């Protein structure tokens, strides 16, 4: 007998924790290399993919080939995309890191990570409460 205890939202929350911790590494790399000549600032995007996987859009996309990008339904497979930032920072040594923007990204990422961790904790606590017989008999 297999009872489905964990819903999509829980999966999405835990996936977003994964992705945000990876994003933290990318942001740290940018900050550490803010003065390295020729370094290209990187960024990581995953929210669109996650939205598709949660089927939040108006249309649910069908995937006709396994090789295609994740088009919906599989939260587990959301990987996020890492690519070079396109910004206006042009320095003579070729470095494209915008330090202030990175600090903002750092703060935002941390806050969203905390939020996801808290929400996850809340959901799990509720499940545990339900399982422990609702505090009753």
């Amino acid at each position: 007998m297999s009872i489905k205890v964990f819903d999509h939202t829980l999966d999405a929350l835990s996936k977003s924790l994964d992705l945000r911790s990876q994003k933290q590494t990318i942001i740290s790399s940018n900050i550490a290399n803010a003065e390295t000549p020729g370094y290209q600032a990187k960024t990581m995007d995953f929210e669109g993919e996650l939205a598709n996987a949660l089927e939040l859009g108006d249309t649910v996309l069908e995937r006709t080939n396994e090789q295609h990008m994740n088009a919906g339904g599989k939260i587990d497979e959301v990987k996020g995309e890492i690519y070079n930032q396109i910004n206006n920072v042009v320095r003579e040594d070729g470095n494209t890191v915008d330090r202030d923007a990175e600090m903002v990204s750092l703060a935002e990422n941390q806050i969203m990570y905390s939020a996801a961790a808290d929400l996850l904790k809340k959901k799990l606590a509720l499940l545990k409460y339900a399982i422990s017989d609702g505090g009753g008999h």
Partner: protein
Amino acid sequence: MTFNTIDSISRLGNLGDGIGKINTQQMEIAESGESASGKASTFGDLLKGALQDANQSQLEANNVVNELVAGRTKDLHGAMIAMEKADVNFRLLAQVRNKVIDAYREIMRMQV
């Protein structure tokens, strides 16, 4: 346990009074055991109402959290509040259920 039994229970003033302490937005408790028309007055209705509330607020919380995680909204406090509401409603449901079971057991113990 059937709701008919609970129906008759609610006509006993004592138990109805005891449970009357629960005050929710949507439900009103009959004081003297008379069913008010159109309002929840039996334990069955109370339970159903609490169940619907809990379910509804859980679905809403899930929606808001999904949107937050997918970057569709930046409404952090909205998500937190929705989650708390779901939590409270669920615990309320659990307590209502407990009281109903208590009441049922009490009745079953009675010598008729």
